[in-house]
């Protein structure tokens, strides 16, 4: 009976996002904003309800429209549980982001076209939702491309800023390279099914097993390229730290919290569902790339001084963590340990969902800060906790979650990731045990560095004295923005408390996919998590309760026994007369020790300029400027040669373009002669 609701809910979702897009034709700016908010909340609610329906009951949704795009195989929508999990993610984040947009879009009014923004925003949400329900190659690729194009327009919203345009171009180039790879992957996948059933996923799934192993490997690598570039996996992540900061903050939140996750979805869909897993090196490759992403992401997040760039790099890190889990899942499947694989994949997906909550909250808080202070530079912020208490609180909640601190949700999923590696370390195969041991090390280092990064991100941004007039005169953001932020921030503790239901839903979605057990193994006893191999138990609810009880108990006891007054005084500074923000530690200073430790990776370019007052003595110094820049290695090693090569080829081809008709005819004759010679010769 419940299945009957599926179709109306689907159309509610589509209609909601259509309303958001209809902002394009609204007569007043106010109506534009209202359309976006109402549309995305309604669409999100519809999508979330639909996803829950599919996840928790045996309902499913199938819509066929073979007439549309008939030549390419027709339009086919089918929502299964794996897709529903991601649909829930898209919809769940769409609601707070829609609320947030009501107020946030105001700051763009008058400068940029909010109508166009509304249209592309609606299209972006719709296309992301449709990616999760697409059930054949053409639908999937079409929605994928729509998602890329609509988000491209959102990235270049501030089209008069060079940085935004550059970011947009990088994004466009990378995402289209990825699209080409995905098209090739689907083409290869389809080459197995001769009956021309239009490359539906069901057909691809059944025929994929018959493909030769080289083709399967090629498909996997192409999918990895296509989905990895979308997910921000190292080394295809270069667009991410540019595009996410450049986009308006509610869009950054969507891109970081949701869109990159669809890259993971694509990888799971193609690699696991359609191909059914592969040999051990697939998992190994994913683990290596995941560890590289996690470490690269967190190391660059650590030294970033731009708040949104920091968050963007931390997205790369978290995608790396998810990939570590996914890789372990692939690896265990190939080793014939489906229970361990289930644990690893569930841990990865749980982290993915948790990351959506805290990264969404963080990006929205960052947007609120940018909105209030007009800067993203952490070195110019400070003291916001007294000026913007709510924003600071949501930023703190997000920071603590992402630093994997108990009792919040990031802790639970990182704990599960650790645990999911243990069965592999205990494996008797030396190479796998060694690989996963290093994986555990990488996971731990990432966790520690992430904590340092977010002490900096929260501490320098929100605490102490403001470092610029903008920060000093900051004001709290309007209600709708706070509501959006609060929803996502509240999700952090709630998801931690609701770990067991969430995890059950995830295992339910994964059950039966590829070689995973069709009846999900229980990962818990009551409220206590328990890994199937019996390696460990942990109860997030009990940890949270005990922690809160002890902290509160300490507070009460101290109130009873130590009742001495509290005075307010100056910060101690060895008796100096006044305190100025220039005496505080800055973001750059905070990261300096770790930057020195990882000097060989960062290879910073330092530049010290000393203004000497008297030429006769170098000790009378008027001013001193210290500048340091870090040029990311992937940029230097991987991309610059490519870009230079393209430029060289372009210069060379320009020489061909003489503009003279004689030359062009000459080329034609030349080619003809060559061709004739070839025909005669062979």
């Amino acid at each position: 009976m419940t299945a009957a609701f599926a179709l109306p809910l689907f159309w509610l979702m589509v209609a909601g996002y259509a309303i958001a897009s209809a902002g394009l034709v609204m007569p007043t700016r106010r109506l534009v904003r209202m359309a976006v908010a109402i549309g995305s909340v309604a669409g999100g609610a519809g999508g979330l309800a639909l996803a829950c329906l599919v996840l928790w009951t045996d309902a499913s949704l199938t819509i066929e429209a073979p007439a549309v795009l008939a030549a390419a195989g027709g339009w086919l929508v089918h929502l299964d549980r794996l897709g529903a999990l991601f649909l829930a993610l898209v919809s769940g984040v769409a609601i707070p982001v829609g609320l947030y947009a009501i107020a946030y879009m105001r700051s763009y009014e008058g400068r940029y076209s909010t109508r166009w923004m509304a249209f592309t925003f609606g299209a972006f949400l719709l296309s992301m939702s449709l990616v999760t329900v697409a059930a054949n190659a053409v639908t999937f690729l079409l929605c994928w491309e729509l998602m890329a194009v609509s988000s491209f327009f959102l990235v270049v919203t501030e089209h008069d800023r060079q940085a935004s345009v550059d970011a947009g171009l990088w994004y466009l180039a990378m995402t289209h390279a990825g699209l080409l790879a995905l098209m090739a992957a689907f083409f290869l996948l389809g080459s197995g099914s001769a009956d021309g059933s239009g490359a539906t996923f069901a057909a691809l799934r059944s025929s994929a097993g018959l493909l030769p192993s080289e083709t399967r490997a090629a498909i996997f690598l192409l999918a990895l390229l296509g989905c990895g570039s979308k997910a921000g996996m190292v080394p295809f992540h270069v667009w991410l730290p540019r595009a996410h900061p450049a986009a308006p903050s509610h869009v950054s939140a969507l891109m970081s919290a949701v869109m990159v996750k669809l890259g993971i979805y694509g990888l799971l869909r193609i690699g696991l569902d359609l191909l059914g897993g592969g040999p051990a090196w697939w998992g190994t490759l994913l683990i290596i790339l995941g560890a590289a992403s996690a470490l690269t992401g967190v190391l660059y997040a650590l030294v970033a001084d731009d708040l949104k760039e920091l968050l963007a790099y931390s997205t790369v890190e978290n995608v790396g963590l998810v990939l570590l889990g996914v890789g372990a899942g692939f690896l265990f499947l190939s080793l014939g340990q489906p229970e361990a694989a289930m644990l690893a994949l569930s841990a990865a997906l749980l982290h993915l969902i948790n990351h959506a909550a805290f990264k969404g909250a963080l990006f929205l808080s960052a947007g609120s800060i940018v909105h209030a202070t007009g800067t993203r530079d952490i070195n110019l912020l400070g003291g916001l906790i007294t000026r913007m208490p709510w924003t600071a609180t949501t930023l703190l909640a997000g920071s603590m979650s992402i630093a994997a601190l108990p009792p919040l949700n990031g802790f639970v999923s990182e704990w599960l990731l650790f645990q999911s590696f243990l069965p592999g370390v205990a494996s008797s195969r030396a190479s796998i045990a060694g690989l996963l041991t290093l994986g555990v090390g990488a996971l731990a280092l990432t966790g520690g560095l992430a904590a340092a990064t977010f002490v900096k991100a929260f501490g320098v941004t929100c605490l102490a004295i403001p470092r610029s007039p903008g920060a000093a005169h900051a004001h709290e953001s309007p209600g709708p923005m706070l509501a959006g932020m609060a929803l996502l921030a509240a999700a952090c503790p709630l998801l931690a408390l609701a770990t067991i239901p969430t995890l059950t839903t995830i295992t339910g979605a994964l059950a039966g996919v590829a070689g995973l057990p069709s009846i999900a193994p229980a990962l818990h006893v009551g409220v206590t998590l328990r890994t199937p191999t019996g390696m460990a138990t942990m109860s997030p609810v009990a940890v949270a309760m005990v922690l809160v009880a002890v902290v509160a108990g300490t507070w009460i006891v101290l109130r009873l026994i130590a009742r001495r007054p509290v005075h307010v005084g100056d910060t101690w500074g060895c008796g100096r007369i006044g305190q100025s923000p220039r005496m505080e530690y800055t973001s750059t200073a905070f990261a300096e020790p770790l930057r020195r430790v990882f000097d060989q990776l960062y290879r910073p370019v330092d530049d010290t300029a000393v203004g000497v007052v008297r030429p006769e003595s170098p000790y009378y110094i008027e001013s001193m400027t210290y500048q340091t820049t870090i040029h990311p290695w992937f940029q230097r090693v991987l991309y610059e040669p490519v870009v230079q090569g393209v430029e060289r080829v372009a210069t060379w081809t320009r020489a061909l373009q003489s503009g003279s008709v004689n030359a062009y005819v000459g080329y034609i004759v030349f080619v003809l002669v060559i061709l004739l010679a070839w025909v005669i010769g062979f």
Partner: protein
Amino acid sequence: MFNTLGVVVEIAQALLALAVAPLLVGLIRWVKARLQNRRGAPVWQPYAELRKLFGKDTIVSSNASWIFRAAPFVVFGSTVVVALLVPVFVTPLPFNQVADLFALVYLLLLGTFALALGGLDPGSAFGGMGASREMTIASLSEPAIALAMLSLALGAGSTNLGEIAARTIAHPTDALSPGHILAFAALFIVMLAETGRLPVDNPATHLELTMIHEAMVLEYSGPALALVEWASWLKLTVFLTLAANLFVPWGLATSLAAGAIAMAVAATVAKLVVLAIGLAVFETRVAKLRLFRVPELLAVSFVLGLLAVTSSFSLR
């Protein structure tokens, strides 16, 4: 069998750890004073310090927010929760099921995180410096801890502390296995770094530029300072107890019989005293490292952890 009584014993042993922590620090200070040919403060001196601090007024910087006031409670609370997890006398207890070694690490990280924010909040240069250094060391010691624990977990087949201790009690020769010894060495180095002992940080320094832990708490006064200090002493006690009861758990009670517990109390106290004296002698012997050699020390600890894991592989 463990339920109500077990919870009571659990809480009792955490409270006892809390009560003993100042004494342990006092003992270390006393031994160090004697090794410096001084008479030194009596071993119960830390209790006098706590009593005094709880009776003093508090001065809070005008720049500080609620984070500064809340941080000591979070630091103290998270450390107490860790103390609840550690098998002090009896193993396994109900709380064993609630969290394991990895959770323990993240609980400690919660305290470090809170204290670093508390250091940054008043806006003083020292606080920022301390926070930055503390996070540097905490983050770099993370992989070493993880690998040391991995090696322990591989031996016991579990990451829950109770099972690890129980396993070693059941197989006493395991305590001498190379994986165990190397993991102990790795964890010992991490302990020095995490609890701010020599050669990483000098707990008795007065020079701001060489401080790590102390620099973060320069702004705290009165009861808040008492909480922070007590938490750091408890952290040291917890680490020493872990070292004693995970690596040489002999004497640990496996039931709630009165005789067994009495034995366990005696054994634990004896082990803690030995470790404390050992630590004091070690601290007398070594000089403080330059800050930028600390990462090298932690790299040694990481390699030790890796070696511990490899050794336990090799014995399979």
